[in-house]
């Protein structure tokens, strides 16, 4: 059986539509008028106004490599982050630290470390999985570039973005 859509009974004023046109215009023009007087709170005008100072400490921006208090890049090239990264944005080429080096005990360091920011989904799993607290998602979110190569963050860039972050991993510190 065909379904009958229940239609409300309209009275004459509703049937000729004109009163409701005027009522509607009152609302929309009211909004227009309030807007023109600058009474309406509009959204943030992005490039000029930013929300940066309100970002919470746990904000997940671009992943970066941090260094410890001696300026050594924390990463030991264990490649855990490379394996866990869901979109496989990380590529690492491990290298060996020469025996005479001050940090010879660490044995490995990343010779190459690149994160493809076109692929990265800012999930933070790399930060989660890192046993060395070497990779952190910082607050930078406006990652743009004019070419694919520019969107490929290399080791130097990652280290520069990460900066120094003294942390709880002290196992490479002889005195602690």
């Amino acid at each position, binding site marked *: 059986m065909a379904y009958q859509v229940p239609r409300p009974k309209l009275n004459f004023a509703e049937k000729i539509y004109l009163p409701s046109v005027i009522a509607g215009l009152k609302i929309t023009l009211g*909004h227009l008028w309030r807007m023109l007087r600058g009474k309406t709170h*509009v959204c943030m005008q992005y490039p000029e106004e930013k929300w940066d100072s309100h970002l919470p400490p746990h904000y997940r921006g671009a992943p970066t490599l941090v260094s410890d208090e001696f300026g050594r890049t924390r990463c030991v090239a264990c490649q855990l982050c490379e394996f866990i990264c869901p979109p496989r944005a990380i590529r690492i080429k491990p290298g060996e630290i020469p025996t005479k080096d001050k940090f010879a005990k660490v044995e490995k360091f990343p010779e190459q470390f690149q994160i493809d920011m076109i692929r990265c989904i800012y999930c933070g799993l790399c930060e989660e999985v890192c046993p060395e607290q070497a990779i952190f998602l910082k607050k930078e979110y406006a990652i743009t570039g004019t070419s694919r190569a520019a969107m490929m963050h290399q080791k130097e860039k990652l280290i520069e973005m990460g900066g120094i972050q003294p942390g709880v991993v002290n196992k490479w510190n002889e005195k602690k």
Partner: protein
Amino acid sequence: MNAILEFLHSDLFFMIWTTLAKSAGLLGVVLGMVSYTVYAERRVSSLMQDRLGPNRTGFPLSLLGFGIKDWSPILGGLGQPIADAVKLLLKEDFTPAYVKKFYYWIAPALGIAAAIISLAVIPFGSSIAGVPMVIANIGIGPLFIFAISSLGVYGIVLAGWSANSKYPFLGAIRSTSQLISYELALGLSVVPLFLIIGKLNLVEIVHYQVQNGWMLLPGITAGKLPTLSQIVCWIPILISFLVFTIAMFAETNRLPFDLPEAETELVGGYHTEYSSMKFALFFLGEYTAMITGSSLIITLFLGAWHFPGIPDGSMAGWPGVLWGLVNIGVFFTKVFAFLIFFIFIRWTLPRFRYDQLMKLGWIWLFEIALVNIFLTALIVAFVH
């Protein structure tokens, strides 16, 4: 040689070049107006919805060395129509493989041609240096406009049919039925006006209004108290104005009558399969039709280029030319005000349901227009 010189001094040549100049000028003004109406539409609608709208694309003043920031609250967004036009021209013009090529190509042109041609009979100004500011001063102005602008539906129907896909087709069918039901009301609603004025020539209708006050506001605009017959005639004129305006909304496919497009139901309606400049032509056509429609309403009911206190361009020498230009300015200001009204309505009302639309057209508007004619005829017979 002599024959050529003679021709260059003849009235025929004078008429030819002034007509060409007027056509080019009017086309330029109207197309410029179209692009800025689109901008106004986006801006006004967003302000009504508590947003800001396109306020960024300015003119690259810093490149020209003005030392101003490109993004400024005043110029911001005014470059948007130009940017849009460039984008539409440069976009890939994609023709799907399954369309009927010939009709698919001809449809957008038909749509815009109808809208532009009907501009020809609109008196958009008084006169400049004795040249009347109307491209074709023909005796049946309104009828010509109705005839031509209803051809515009062919653009929509052909677009819908040739696109060979269901949404455009539905849009085209809706457009046809809408046109049939509203064209009647549109035509009938202005008959009372002609009964009262007794002329069909738009220039003479304007002339009548200059002398006796605008049709819709007879008292104030003529600078004298309205006569009894004017007061009595005002009632049918108001009715005819309302019906005509509503029918004009339907004719130009504007919300609340935009069923042929109905983005929320039909994807994009009749122009779903169009891209790039062909799509833009439909867009241009729609807005040009809006301008034609508003010009017609202004010409018939609101005194065209006339404004109380502003003389027409019949004076000799420079003052005449100046006042002629002012008259043109007045006309386009009125048109723009009406366009803004179109925009207000569009962003206020929801779309009609299809059966409501048909009911409104056939049961209300058609009947009202018909009764209005008899009412006017009686008034004219006994009072006028």
